[in-house]
């Protein structure tokens, strides 16, 4: 689904109300190297979490 460009501004402004500014500021404080490291660590965590969930499901079966 595509949205009319003219209507996007208002929608984006509404979304901005719920953005956690502290997270934005944290990201800005980091160097590019730190930002990329955090991303890789999150991906690693996501993978481990997924594997853990699979193991738990297998154990229940």
């Amino acid at each position, binding site marked *: 689904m595509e949205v009319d460009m003219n209507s996007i501004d208002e929608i*984006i402004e509404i979304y901005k109300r719920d953005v956690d500014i502290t997270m934005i500021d944290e990201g800005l404080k980091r160097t590019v190297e730190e930002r990329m490291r955090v991303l890789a660590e999150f991906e690693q965590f996501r993978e481990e979490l997924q594997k853990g969930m699979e193991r738990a499901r297998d154990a229940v079966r």
Partner: protein
Amino acid sequence: MTQFAEILRLLTKAGIEFIVVGGVAATAHGSPRATTDVDVLYARNRGNLDRLVAALAGLEPYLRGAPPGLPFKFDYETVKAGLNFTLITNLGALNLLGEIAGGGKYEDLLTQSDFSDLYGSLCRVLNLDMLIWTKRAAGRPKDFEAIAELELLRDRSPSPTPPASKS
């Protein structure tokens, strides 16, 4: 699991002309939003397509989400005939984009990108203004939250991050 560093290292070492766009570019600019794939805008000249195909040959690239067993072969003819490829590889999820909405091709966006050191690889990264512009141009509701974050990020950014120099 997507191995961001390895994918970018592979593309850079192979001499592929590409610009990092999407979530990884957003992260480089400071976005707290996590992504699980690498989006790159690649140049579609003959030499670059050859390098791309050769670089990915060992990674068993396959269409992400497609049923197994399709006669998909990632070779020059396939890349030439297609444009945007959503791939799964041995290094994780890689999206090869020949064009992006609102931005155009690799050559169109060269001046809208800066070099940045990503995991030790010097890569072109789409600048924040253009990243926002392309997401707005795509007009996808799923991007609205990300656009809101990126615009706040731009507004709160003390000054643009100086690009890494390519020596």
